[in-house]
């Protein structure tokens, strides 16, 4: 337990120390909020979609979370290249403990990042209809964070260096984000695209955030929670397995 705690604490300390990283990773969500929010707002309104900023905010919160999450997981590559992973691997603790501690730490950091983006959306004009579901919204943020940190850990365990990082961002993270209903409503899409969005786990995360923050859900909170929960568990298992196979 103590080992898991100290590994978790390490991720947090590293996060709070690199202010450049915190601010840097806020840049993208803010840009999306301002550029897309104000840019598409009038069109969205005319098309009868309502307040676009309100629609966009949960998606952009999810964006802040997934990038931080996947990055925290993938950081394993650095720990490996710069030796720190060896220090933990020769310690008398199991690899599962290492993986769990790191992933929880990364997920906590990503959740915090989500909360910061959430607070920023207020500054830009997002209005929360009700505060009652806010705790549930935080749970959704944490689940999304956990899912993507575990995914990052799984990928980081397979890669030898950061050369493949750009590939992962462009061919995995970006599509998952764009096809999750974070930027546009999913109803009325062509059936091919629709099918893809339905198998994107982030769709359920974004829908959960919509449900809890703007009370406009497509699948219902229970479905969102179950799908997200099950996929997170599966990814945690895959991540743990791949992490246990790392050879130094």
């Amino acid at each position, binding site marked *: 337990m*103590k*080992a898991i*705690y*100290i590994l978790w604490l*390490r991720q947090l*300390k*590293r996060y709070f*120390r*690199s202010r*450049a*990283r915190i601010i*840097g990773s806020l840049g993208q969500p803010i840009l999306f909020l301002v550029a897309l929010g104000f840019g598409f707002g009038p069109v969205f309104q005319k098309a009868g979609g309502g307040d676009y900023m309100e629609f966009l905010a949960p998606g952009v919160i999810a964006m802040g979370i997934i990038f931080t999450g996947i990055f925290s997981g993938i950081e394993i590559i*650095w720990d490996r*290249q*710069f*030796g*720190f992973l*060896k*220090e*933990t*691997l*020769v*310690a*008398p*603790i199991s690899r599962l403990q290492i993986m769990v501690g790191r992933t929880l730490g990364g997920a906590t950091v990503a959740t915090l990042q989500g909360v910061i983006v959430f607070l920023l959306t207020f500054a830009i004009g997002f209005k929360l209809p009700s505060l009652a579901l806010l705790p549930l919204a935080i749970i959704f943020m944490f689940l999304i964070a956990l899912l993507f940190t575990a995914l990052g850990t799984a990928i980081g365990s397979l890669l*030898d*260096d*950061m*050369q493949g*990082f750009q590939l992962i961002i462009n061919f995995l993270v970006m599509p998952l984000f764009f096809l999750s209903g974070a930027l546009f409503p999913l109803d009325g899409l062509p059936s091919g695209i629709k099918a893809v969005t339905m198998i994107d786990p982030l769709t359920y995360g974004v829908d959960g955030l919509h449900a809890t923050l703007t009370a406009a859900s497509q699948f219902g909170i229970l479905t969102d929670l179950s799908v997200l929960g099950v996929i997170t568990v599966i990814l945690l298992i895959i991540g743990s397995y791949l992490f246990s196979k790392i*050879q*130094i």
Partner: protein
Amino acid sequence: MTENIIQVSNLSKKFGDITAVDNISFSVRKGEIFAFLGPNGAGKSTTIKMLTTLLTPTSGKINLNGYDPVTDSKNVRSSFGIVFQDPSLDDELTAWENMEFHGVLYSVPKEIRRTRIEQLMKIVELWDRKDSLVKEFSGGMKRRLEIARGLLHHPKVLFLDEPTIGLDPQTRNHIWSYIQNLNKEEGITIFFTTHYMEEADRVAERVAIIDQGKIIGDGTPSELKAKTQTASLEDAFLNLTGHVIRSENVSSTDHMRANRRMWRR
């Protein structure tokens, strides 16, 4: 007969078609300073990785402090401390936090941990820098911190993989006198590798030389010199391993080091 703290018998490690370690046997006595020498790519690191549970042997047996690294890795891991060839500190944490982290991972009780961290950091003369981030440290300071960290859980064996590489003579001397002192006072067995033969000659009580995965000589430095009829351990080493320069695989690490800064900020 003295007790062996490390006993290796018929140990082999194959990576596909390549045999990195080929049926080696040797032993290290409790409380001695043992040097494990060999040219680049001879199988030193692979052997250390097997001894320290990071790699599973293809065949053969290892016994470290009475435990088998394959079946009893947890007990083996509690028995040794290691200073890796490459730094393995967390740059973004302070010196003290690196020590604390290690102590918690090795379940050293809090009170003992705090006292020992202070003692050890004073010995390696880093106590006044305890709250500095490790990334601000010089190579020598990092080494000293790693040695202190490797001793925090009072290991029976301390592995030092090229502990003095890239250090100036002052720091090197300082570190060795500290290690020799530990060896004498605490009875900690020292297992080290180095490319500096005069260093091995000076501090090691016994030496094993590995080349192309095989042990090609072992004994005290004077025994090796007598056997090869040479005047220095360096000559004995060259006599046994030949003069051909060995190639070593370049890892992606070099690449990473160059890119690291770019990603960080």
